[in-house]
């Protein structure tokens, strides 16, 4: 409250100067002093009181009705002061919760960390950004001893902490699979059983699993209800949707997954994504898939990593820097 007394003098001087000159500088001063008040936890009703006292000193003959009117104004500010105090409590609670979540997010990052592998003749770009602190998208690269590459991409329906808990399950389960079962349909079948057993029925996971065999120029893949990716055919300069069928994980214990295969040629790209990419929203408008492909096409001559970074920046801005869903985009480009 000593700070308040000091500021009271300050306030009176600024007010006097403003009344005399009506200059912008005093108003800038008003802004500064009110920020200092907020920093010192001084509620708005104190400002009204300060104002009344300053006026009374500056104008000893201040009419009674003006004084009474300011008493009335002060009374209306008490509720705002209460809301302001609740705001301060909320801020503290929020900070505590956020730091708890950030520890948890750090743990999750460590746990789910995956390294972009180096594969001869394959240019890989990947970006995964969480909408909130914890990422409910999951991607993982597994380099096989035969030189092949496994790519897992999953999305929990739901965000935040519950989604993150789910994702740890996927990770631990995949870790426990023996390497031989790297066929996409077998992996999805196994995971489906784990999810069905362990996760409550209101929670679903979509997943795309791809297995790239460099020696055969082939991509094998299966999907569990995951957002379809795109295939860029360099010879025709066209994009086409990667069509797949498959039930989301966790619905039925006996789900079987179809496995697809396609040959990949030089310059072709495989684009895998989660619905956070295709369901970007600009204001009230959902973007169209074509818009994603357009941005990819515009930047198609960039290396894969620069390409995905650019696409992310584009849609980050479009959404006003507030992602509505976790955003994961993987691009594979066959170089030779």
């Amino acid at each position: 409250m000593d700070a308040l007394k000091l500021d009271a003098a300050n306030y009176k001087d600024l007010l006097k100067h403003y009344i005399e000159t009506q200059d912008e500088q005093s108003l800038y001063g008003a802004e500064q002093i009110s920020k200092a008040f907020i920093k010192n936890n001084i509620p708005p009703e104190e400002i009204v009181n300060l104002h009344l006292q300053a006026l009374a000193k500056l104008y000893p003959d201040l009419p009674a009705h003006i004084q009474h009117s300011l008493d009335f104004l002060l009374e209306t500010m008490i509720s705002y002061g209460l809301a302001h105090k609740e705001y301060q409590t909320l801020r503290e609670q929020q900070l505590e919760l956020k730091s708890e979540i950030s520890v948890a997010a750090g743990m999750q990052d460590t746990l789910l960390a995956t390294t972009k592998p180096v594969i001869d003749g394959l240019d890989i770009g990947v970006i995964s950004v969480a909408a909130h602190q914890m990422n409910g998208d999951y991607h993982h690269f597994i380099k096989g001893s035969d030189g092949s590459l496994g790519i897992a991409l999953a999305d929990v329906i739901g965000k935040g902490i519950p989604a993150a808990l789910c994702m740890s399950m996927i990770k631990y389960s995949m870790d426990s699979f023996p390497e031989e079962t790297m066929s996409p349909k077998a992996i999805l079948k196994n995971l489906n059983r784990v999810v069905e057993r362990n996760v409550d029925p209101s929670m679903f996971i979509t997943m795309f699993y791809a297995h790239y065999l460099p020696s055969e120029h082939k991509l094998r893949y299966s999907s569990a209800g995951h957002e379809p990716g795109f295939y860029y055919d360099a010879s025709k300069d066209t994009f086409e949707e990667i069509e797949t069928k498959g039930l989301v994980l966790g619905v039925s214990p006996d789900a079987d997954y179809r496995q697809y295969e396609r040959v990949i040629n030089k310059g072709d790209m495989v684009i895998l994504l989660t619905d956070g990419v295709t369901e970007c929203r600009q204001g009230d408008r959902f973007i169209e898939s074509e818009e994603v492909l357009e941005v990819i096409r515009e930047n198609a001559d960039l290396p894969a990593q620069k390409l995905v970074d650019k696409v992310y920046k584009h849609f980050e801005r479009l959404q006003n820097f507030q992602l509505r869903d976790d955003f994961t985009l993987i691009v594979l480009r066959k170089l030779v």
Partner: protein
Amino acid sequence: MNLQSCVTIQKEWDIVAARQLGRDIARKTGFGTVDQARIATAISELARNIYLYAGSGKICFEVIDNLDQKGMAMISIDSGPGIKDLSLVMEDGYSTSGGLGAGLPGVKRLVDEFDIKSEEGEGTEIRAIKWVR
């Protein structure tokens, strides 16, 4: 020695009477304008609480004059249904007022000391103290 003055709360108009008496006592006790307004708001909340949930009760005031401190206690007493879950009621934003900083957490914020006792089926007693600074 503390002298108690009380206002019975039965209708909404009684809230104003309690505020009036409380503000008068606060002024005489030496509280400044801002604290008078805070005390009046706290009384509003306590009295409205009685009016809305207990039907009837009373708000009493005590002037506290220790050697080192001067202050005022506002005591709310009712024999209403009592509060089942005290920690829930004291949680921000629980009260039906939509968490406008009001309700009992609001009273707690407006004063310096706050104590509440409640037994289901027997009633509630709240004691809130504000000290002159």
